């Protein structure tokens, strides 16, 4: 079965924030009035009710020229999602066959493990409902064949929606164009550390994703992997071993002699 994906061509992002508002509007988010933090960015970071943020990165290059990198940030819909791996509530986080990683808030217990498990620091706990929220890739829209709201809104075709295979092709072609255009370092961002993502980026400087606000080499945190893997198995072993050990100890050695057996029932 094909999987779906979003492509973000950062070389064409104008930071218009249409995707931000489209997301807010479609998902009927409550709007909160933000303060001023000295930049054009709407908020310093994602919020439980703000799932799609354009990060503005003002950089002056060595030759004195400016660049103003803008890139949309949201759930990456990892092929191997750290949130899902760390979630203790079965079914609260699930990965659809089309690759979308979504939350079922009926089942979410609000433990916040997914927040820690996510290598992109995306999910956010709502102080009101005590549940965790993030981009669902508009699974309600994609389920009926519509594109996600952010994709539809984007005026400059910076965002594209389609099958992951198609988008990887498009992204590679686009990176090739950028290379021809003098951006030798152009490439795509599809980090292997999480098995690839269903949100792909074209970057002018693929070696430096951090200049777009993207983590350089995201992986599921080793502590999460260790916990979900060996620690869990060893723990299971310990519990069963402990109980069985006690049982067989009793069979073999029996109770400790007390010295005055007859007094024990007094």
């Amino acid at each position: 079965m094909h999987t779906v994906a979003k492509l973000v061509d950062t070389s064409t992002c104008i930071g218009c924030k249409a995707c931000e508002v489209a997301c807010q509007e479609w998902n009927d988010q409550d709007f909160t009035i933000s303060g001023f933090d000295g930049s054009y960015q709407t908020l310093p970071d994602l919020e439980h009710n703000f799932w799609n943020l354009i990060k503005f990165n003002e950089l002056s290059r060595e030759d004195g020229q400016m660049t103003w990198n803008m890139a949309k940030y949201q759930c990456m819909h990892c092929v191997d999602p750290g949130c899902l791996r760390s979630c203790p509530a079965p079914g609260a986080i699930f990965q659809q066959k089309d690759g979308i990683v979504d939350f079922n808030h009926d089942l979410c217990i609000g433990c916040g493990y997914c927040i820690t498990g996510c290598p992109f620091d995306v999910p956010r706990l709502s102080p009101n409902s005590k549940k965790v929220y993030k981009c669902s890739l508009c699974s309600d829209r994609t389920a009926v064949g519509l594109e996600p709201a952010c994709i539809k809104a984007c005026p400059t075709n910076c965002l594209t929606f389609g099958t992951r295979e198609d988008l990887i092709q498009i992204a590679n072609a686009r990176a090739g164009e950028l290379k021809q255009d003098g951006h030798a370092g152009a490439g795509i961002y599809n980090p292997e550390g999480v098995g690839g993502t269903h949100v792909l980026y074209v970057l002018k400087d693929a070696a430096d994703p951090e200049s777009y606000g993207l983590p350089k080499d995201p992986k599921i945190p080793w502590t999460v992997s260790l916990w979900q893997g060996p620690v869990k198995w060893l723990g299971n072993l310990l519990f069963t071993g402990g109980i069985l050990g006690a049982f067989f100890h009793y069979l073999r050695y029996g109770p400790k002699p007390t010295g005055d057996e007859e007094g024990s029932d007094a």
Partner: protein
Amino acid sequence: MQARPVHRFSFAERAIHWLAALSFLYAALSGLALWSHHLYWLATVLGGGVVTRWGHPWGGIVFALLVGAMFLIWARQMRLDSDDRTWLRHAKKYAVHDEAGLPAAGRFNGGQKMLFWGQVVLTLLLLASGVVLWFPEWMPRNFRLAAILIHPIVAAGSIGMIILHIYMGTAAVPGSFRAMIRGWVTPGWATSHHPKWYREISKN
């Protein structure tokens, strides 16, 4: 011959112990529910996932407070002396009921003292890592990453110790359970398990 009961645990000691035991049981079961999807049915039994997520930290807090109380009343008595160290070196003999040559135990033997100190340390670790996991939204990411590993490891260790403790306190050493329920033991029990203690209290 009807032996005169020997007073071993005060009411306060027993109350604290059993409150700690109950809170530990709740924290452990609710924790195990989140430990593995295969044990998530425990959450159902305990009132559902949301309730479990809500109750587990509170259970832990209660347990930690009670461990604190135990620390206050028992810490002095739990100091390891040279006899205890010798005892611990020969703990294997104790396990197979070959107690000849083991130093006489005081009110608590070396194993019990180790359980005490082990629980004190592990509870502190559980408390610290647990608070981090309790409020992920306020915690730095590195803290959360550490806690997400430390908490289950420590919990597993703690549960392992308690399994041993329960075995020892019930089946393995008859009379121990009564000591913690009713507060007294027989002179024979005292003589065979804690002779040094028995000698001391008999003097008075």
